[in-house]
């Protein structure tokens, strides 16, 4: 239990899913044009990650022991149906939130950060509690990276940028600089 805070901080900052593992780049580059949508997408992704972590643990413990080669197919089916289920739930409970989320909700299925989370947690042999903490750290880390990039992009719209570099090229270079900044966190644990 001692390593729970470590798992959380590691997933949040040191091994940030977006900036060091390059997971979930499609939404990272695609929808990070406004602060509000990116924060919302980040929260929805965090929620799906939590549910996936629980499902992955159940599958790993009870089902996949007997058939490890089915792991990938099981995970992807679970993720797709979780997203579908959450979509229906939100539609029923809060139509306003559902409209606000729009297309981002179904797109979470193809976000490789979610599948990556399930696979990494399995590979490292995380238990139930560790898996949930890991998912929470990864989800908040994803939201953090998304919100940071969205803030920088909103700011950059006000300044005079050469036409050539606008668009994806600039976003990637901004992400590179962000990623360098996050590398600084790697020193957090080396001394202990």
């Amino acid at each position, binding site marked *: 239990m001692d390593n729970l805070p470590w798992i959380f901080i590691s997933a949040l900052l040191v091994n940030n899913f977006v*900036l060091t593992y390059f997971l979930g780049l499609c939404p990272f580059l695609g929808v990070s044009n406004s602060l509000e949508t990116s924060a919302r997408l980040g929260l929805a992704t965090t929620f799906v990650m939590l549910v996936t972590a629980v499902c992955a643990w159940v599958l790993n413990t009870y089902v996949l022991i007997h058939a490890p080669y089915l792991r990938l*197919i099981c995970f992807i*089916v679970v993720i797709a149906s979780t997203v579908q289920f959450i979509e229906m739930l939100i539609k029923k409970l809060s139509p306003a939130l559902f409209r606000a989320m729009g297309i981002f909700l179904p797109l979470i299925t193809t976000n490789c950060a979610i599948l990556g989370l399930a696979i990494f947690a399995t590979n490292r042999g995380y238990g139930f509690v560790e898996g949930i903490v890991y998912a929470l750290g990864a989800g908040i880390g994803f939201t953090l990276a998304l919100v940071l990039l969205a803030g920088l992009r909103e700011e950059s719209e006000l300044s005079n940028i050469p036409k050539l570099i606008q668009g994806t090229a600039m976003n990637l270079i901004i992400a590179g600089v962000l990623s*360098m900044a996050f590398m600084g966190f790697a020193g957090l644990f080396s001394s202990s």
Partner: protein
Amino acid sequence: MKTNESYEEFVKGIWRDNPVFVQVLGMCPMLAVTNSAINAIAMGMASMFVLVGSSFLVSAFRHVIPKQVRISCFIIIIATFVTIADYTLLALVPKVHKELGAFIPLIVANCLILGRQEAFASRYPTKLAVMDALGMASGFMLALFSLGAVREILGDGALFGIRIFSENFEPWIVMILPPGGFLTLGVILLFFNWFKYKKDEFLADVAKAERGGG
């Protein structure tokens, strides 16, 4: 005529509609595994196998798969091929498999592959779908290789593990670390923008000259 058509589908994926440089798809594996040229090629081959295999199956079954559940069907077909690729690599080249790690199963979530099934394979006959998949996969491999080669040369002073600079070369460690991936791809996209910009300028000039002449 028929061969021309399939040739056309093959070529468009390599340059004009290059999945990475032009459509900006499949970024996650693109950046994660390109810290050396050999990893990039292994990833490219695995993606090519999955893309061609699933395009063939999806296209062959395109009249059978019900429209409402098509995405789930595509995903399951893709996941099957990825599992095959995963176990094959593990058996043939365990070292590369270990380095690519979790990124082989993550081919499933590569939006390039699902995108081709939805946009092309589920609508066209098998032959065209396979040609399209081959072209797109070659374009993807080209992009992976160029990124991997640049990063390995600058970050390690070597290509395929063979040193190409003298001992005095100071490797740019940052290039093989995550930020290097973002920066290299950013600069490559910048070059693509520049090409496009120059071409548009040239076409505009030609149009103006023609108007002036007429």
